[in-house]
């Protein structure tokens, strides 16, 4: 059995970057506060001391500019890790993500690949209000040419980030402020999890919760509540949204025949909408109930604590949705 250590999600991301920077000089980390400050969320702690300022580089607050610079460096064959302090700020850089990184290989007929990683936290934390609390997955997966990984656990953080760095395409790795302190067992050795492989985080026969990223933990909590009612929920963690493990989705649908899609973002054209489309297209006859979605309320994130709680997709909403697809009355609780 390989050695494992219990470390935080933050440390696991750090370990993945160091693992890849040790084996490939073309990998470098650039972003706001990543070097001298050790990272806004301390993900890059110690990396400046270890690799020097050639490879661990503080950028100005110029998201469009430094994202574009990293894309240009990737066009020349380097493998930049472009850190956004949060993906909220990367909206400023979307032109370089969507128009440059995503389309470059296609426009050049395969001449110019863009092996870049965009990483940082996505989604809401606590009372950060509207502009700092949004899930950015759909902005990225909407564009063919981009890949997206969303690790939920420390082990997945290490393995998926390593895979993202090695991948020859632009890969966004979306983390979460509320995940950085999560602890878990992570292999010490070189560790890579292939993109496109979902993971059943909990098995169950009665209903499937299909989710990703931070919401995996909400789903697991909901499953524990449901277990007290003798409802066994399966929690499928997609782990990457592009490539999407459609087989795993179809398998869990075939197993439980009832699905709740859970995501942190807004409902309109959301990730869940894509999953529902896939299920109705390819597993319609497996369904015993309409697929339900649990998302953020279709409003900008409010600041007030009580309203924020109402807006976020929480355990209660997931539990209720699961009961609903099972035709179990919610009034029972």
């Amino acid at each position: 059995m390989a050695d494992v250590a219990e470390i935080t999600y933050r440390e696991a991301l750090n370990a993945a970057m160091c693992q890849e920077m040790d084996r490939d000089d073309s990998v470098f980390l650039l972003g706001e506060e990543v070097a001298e400050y050790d990272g806004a969320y301390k993900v890059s702690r110690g990396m400046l001391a270890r690799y020097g300022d050639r490879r661990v580089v503080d950028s100005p607050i110029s998201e469009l500019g430094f994202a574009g610079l990293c894309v240009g460096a990737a066009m020349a064959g380097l493998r930049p890790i472009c850190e956004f302090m949060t993906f909220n700020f990367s909206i400023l850089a979307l032109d370089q993500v969507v128009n440059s990184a995503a389309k470059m290989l296609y426009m050049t007929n395969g001449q110019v690949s863009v092996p870049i990683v965009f990483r940082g936290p996505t989604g809401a934390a606590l009372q950060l209000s509207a502009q700092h609390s949004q899930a950015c997955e759909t902005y990225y997966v909407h564009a063919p040419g981009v890949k997206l990984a969303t690790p939920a656990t420390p082990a997945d953080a290490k393995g998926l980030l390593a895979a993202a760095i090695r991948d020859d395409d632009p890969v966004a790795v979306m983390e979460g402020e509320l995940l950085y302190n999560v602890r878990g067992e992570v292999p010490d050795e070189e560790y890579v999890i292939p993109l496109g492989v979902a993971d059943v985080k909990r098995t169950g026969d009665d209903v499937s919760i299909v989710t990703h990223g931070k919401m995996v933990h909400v789903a697991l909590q909901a499953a524990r509540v449901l277990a007290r009612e003798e409802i066994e929920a399966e929690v499928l963690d997609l782990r990457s949204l592009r490539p999407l493990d459609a087989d795993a989705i179809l398998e869990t649908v075939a197993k439980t025949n009832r699905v709740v899609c859970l995501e942190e973002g807004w409902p309109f054209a959301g990730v869940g909408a894509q999953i529902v489309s896939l299920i109705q297209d390819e597993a319609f006859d497996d369904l015993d109930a309409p697929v339900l979605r649990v998302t953020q309320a279709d409003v900008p994130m409010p600041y007030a604590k009580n309203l924020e709680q109402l807006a976020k997709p929480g355990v209660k909403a997931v539990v209720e949705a699961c009961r609903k697809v099972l035709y179990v009355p919610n009034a029972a609780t």
Partner: protein
Amino acid sequence: MANGDGPAGDGGEPGAATRLHGFSRDELHGLLADMLLYRRFEEKAEEAYAIGKIGGFCHLHIGQEGLAAGAIKPLRADDLVVTAYREHTQAIAKGIDPRAVMAELYGRTGGCSGGRGGSMHLFDTAVGFYGGHGIVGAQIPLGAGLAWAIRYRGGDQICVCFMGDAAVNQGAFLESLNMSAVWKLPVVYVVENNGYGMGTAFSRVSATDVEARSGAYGIPAHTVDGQDALETYRFFERLAERVRRGAGPQFVNAVTYRFRGHSMSDPVSGTYRSKEEVESHVRGRDPIALLRDRLMEAALLTRKELEGIDADARAACDDAAAFADASPLPAPSTLYDHVYAEINPNGRLFLDGREGAPAGGRAGGGGRTPAGGGAKGGRRG
């Protein structure tokens, strides 16, 4: 070409010079031939557009050929060029075969981007030409990134990043200049200052002049007459060497003029610039005519030689158009090629479920599979 190996300028008596601005007769003829090729190429493209051989947006460089030759020809083969969307002649100047450029405009497989890019997205990394970018100013951080990669690897190439004057009002420009200065990147930013962003005069929407824009970042600004190909060439030759030796980023305001409309659908003149203004530039500031006249005055070019050079240029463009016409359209089966460099063995990258999309998926499937199992139906009731 060495510097200073001859009279620096055209002050010699007519008929007596053997060199002009240090250029030999052959070199001068070569430059004139390059520029005539660019002019005839663009005229050919204009003609092909008119008969529907070329579609979409098509931006001609006519009037600005002095810059394509003067700024790119002095570069080394391994130097990098990145630019915006008025770039046919720049692509040719950097070394892409006119046939491959024309075939790209035609959307054919023989094009330098396989017909996937078109007029605005010409690429050939083998000659250091990195496009061809359609969003105003977006190529500027890319240019900084190409220069970053050169510096990261300890190379001595430089990157030349072209833009139109309107691009200096984009945030990407300001951010890129700042980063280039902070990291002393080997990049030359060249503004092809033709005075207009599409149909809006630069001065109407700009608080300061082009040449003032780099000072805030401590980047040296230079102004060069882009209609004077010889001066432009000598200028870039010196500047490139300085940047190669570590002078850091440079900013060039290259003054020029666009003889045609912004794109094929736009009038040459009209509401935003007068016919007289355009005509005065065409008459007095045509970079090709200016060079031709100087060479003839210096007895370095005969009428017959000129006719020969021009005939060669026209023949090359006819040949490029014939090549493009004969080049096949991309096969429908290639629609999904080159979206991703790496088709991951697991999961689906394409969600449209169409025929032809690479399948992916663990069991070699992942394509559309009719749900044939039938509902288990009402397991809980």
